[in-house]
């Protein structure tokens, strides 16, 4: 059993036993869903279906229904893509990077953060696919021998790197998540009373029995997958940034993009985790496992990554002036003072100022304030991508080609729709899946549980 410092706050509050942890996590799955769940699910489903309708209309009519024009060929779709991929990054960071750093507080939040990752990457993947216009030829991005002669996909192109990065990221995250879920499904299976749920969870649990050798393999597989997922998560958003950084558009071809995008991704991802978990812990009665300390740790991550993002914004500005390239300078002057000044300054306010408030301990330990800031950060990070993408291309080298981007109602509908679909998935997850890695949490009960830490035996040597 691992001991930790007495002054460190316990991670599990109250007097919990192993059985209590099982009860607390499984009860919401076994009980009838509360009315609130149906209400939220209904709202999310309606919004999601509206989004599906917009996508079908888009596919039937063509990309022209978006607010794009000959100058601005990428706008809301790629903004939303980058936004969703970014949100996805927190889950892998929590489950992989924090596992390598042996951060025990991750155990209470990794399961739902990973679920969030997977659903967010689903939503992200949708945008490049529908941007193809002809969704049914989407498989052309794969290196397949084809009937049009020996023409292959272009392996020199960052857009193809993105195909590989996103699909690897999605499938590896899914596997990592499911391998952790198997033992917890076994717990639900062994408790299930109704024949249907027993049958369903038996299938999902893959016949897990918790033998010592299985656990030995489980721990190694988790460690190696974490080791693989850590560079993977950094590579994915670096590659997303290459989509822009390898181009020759002023405002895009910036070498600072990879680290700046990765920090921004973690920043927005943690904000989304906060938004979801602050509601979930309350609705599902998990306050003993996800409490102020966890929120504070996450706020510190938001503060650090937010500061990196802020530094990157200012560095970008400085370099655009220092480079002496007038096109580069203009791209940034135009961002701050041009027709999209409001987007730029919303981004600056939301992403540079708001995380700095987390230096104040009272604020970063306040749940209400955290919830508010998490929404602000999500809005700010959406604007960041919009600013980078649209302001860099709307004023071309030839002034005659200058243009503005106005989103059409299909643009808005598809975006809002993905938020609806995301919540449909997340609510289903919260209803049927163990939202806490319950068997992993049991391993830290004796080391970090409140009742154990307060007992007089805790600091005696065995």
């Amino acid at each position: 059993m691992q001991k930790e410092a007495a002054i460190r706050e316990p991670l599990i509050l109250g007097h919990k036993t192993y059985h209590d942890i099982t009860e607390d996590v499984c009860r919401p799955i076994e009980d009838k869903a509360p009315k609130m769940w149906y209400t939220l699910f209904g709202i999310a489903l309606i919004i999601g279906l509206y989004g599906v309708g917009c996508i079908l209309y888009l596919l039937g009519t063509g990309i022209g229904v978006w607010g794009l024009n000959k100058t601005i060929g990428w706008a809301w779709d790629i903004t939303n893509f980058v936004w969703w991929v970014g949100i996805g990054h927190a889950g892998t960071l929590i489950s992989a990077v924090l596992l390598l750093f042996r951060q025990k507080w991750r155990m209470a939040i990794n399961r739902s953060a990973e679920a969030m990752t997977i659903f967010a990457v689903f939503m992200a993947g949708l945008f490049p696919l529908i941007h193809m216009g002809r969704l049914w030829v989407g498989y052309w991005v794969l290196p397949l021998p084809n009937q049009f002669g020996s023409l292959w996909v272009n392996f020199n192109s960052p857009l193809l790197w993105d195909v590989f990065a996103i699909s690897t990221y999605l499938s590896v995250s899914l596997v990592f998540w499911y391998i952790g879920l198997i033992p917890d499904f076994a717990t639900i299976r062994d408790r299930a009373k109704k024949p249907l749920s027993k049958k369903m969870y038996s299938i999902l649990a893959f016949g897990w029995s918790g033998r010592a050798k299985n656990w030995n393999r489980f721990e190694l597989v988790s460690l190696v997958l974490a080791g693989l997922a850590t560079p993977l998560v950094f590579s994915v958003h670096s590659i997303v940034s290459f989509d822009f950084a390898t181009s020759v558009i002023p405002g895009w071809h910036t070498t600072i993009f990879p680290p700046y995008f990765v920090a921004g991704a973690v920043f927005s991802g943690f904000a989304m985790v906060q938004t979801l978990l602050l509601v979930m812990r309350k609705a599902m009665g998990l306050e003993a496992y996800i409490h102020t300390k966890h929120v504070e740790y996450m706020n510190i991550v938001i503060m650090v990554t937010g500061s990196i993002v802020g530094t990157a914004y200012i560095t970008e500005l400085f370099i655009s002036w220092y480079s002496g390239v007038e096109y580069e300078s203009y791209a940034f002057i135009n961002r701050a003072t041009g027709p999209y000044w409001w987007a730029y300054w919303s981004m600056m306010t939301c992403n540079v100022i708001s995380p700095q408030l987390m230096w104040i301990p009272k604020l970063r330990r306040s749940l209400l304030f955290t919830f508010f800031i998490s929404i602000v950060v999500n809005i700010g990070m959406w604007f960041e991508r919009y600013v980078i993408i649209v302001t860099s291309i709307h004023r071309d080298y030839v002034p005659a080609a200058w243009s503005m981007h106005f989103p059409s109602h299909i643009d808005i509908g598809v975006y809002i729709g993905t938020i609806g679909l995301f919540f449909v998935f997340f609510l289903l997850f919260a209803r049927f899946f163990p939202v806490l890695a319950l068997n992993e949490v049991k391993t830290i009960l004796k080391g970090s549980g409140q009742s154990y830490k307060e007992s007089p035996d805790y600091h005696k040597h065995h």
Partner: protein
Amino acid sequence: MSDKVIYVMYDDDEALKDSAKKLVSKGVKISEVFSPFPIHGIDPIIGIKNTRLGIMAFLYGLTGLTLATLGMRYFMVTDWPMNIGGKPNFSYLDNMLAFVPISFEFTVLCAAHGMAITYLLRNKTLPGMPAQNPDPRTTDDKFVMEIRLNENHGISEAELDEMLKETGFFELDKKEIN
């Protein structure tokens, strides 16, 4: 050949580990331990070797890297040397840097999935498999040790019962199997 299996249940992981240590020192062979979460340090006590899945992951990763390299060399250099701005890919090395991201992604893809599939196969955990734990409580808060009489020839059942009693178990269950 008929055999008798004894399932000794404990309600604490440390209790199981301590009694396993005592039993093994008296020459008892413990054939299996079932627990809701990994009990750290139990493996050397009951003689479980460390898994070699890590080596497999490395080999799968190596396979991925090789496939990616061979594939991209064939697509971009041999079969259709793409000529961009008068600069075709004459050799793989000329264009190596552009191939790094996909080589990396494909290595990770193969290592992760290869290892995960091997893990599921070696554990015999696949969709639809029946549960094999002796008691449903072992996935909740109970810890069970499995001892087979056939594997403990030098010790009589009565002697074993006596030893087990000293360990302060929670429940004891015996089963005849054929």
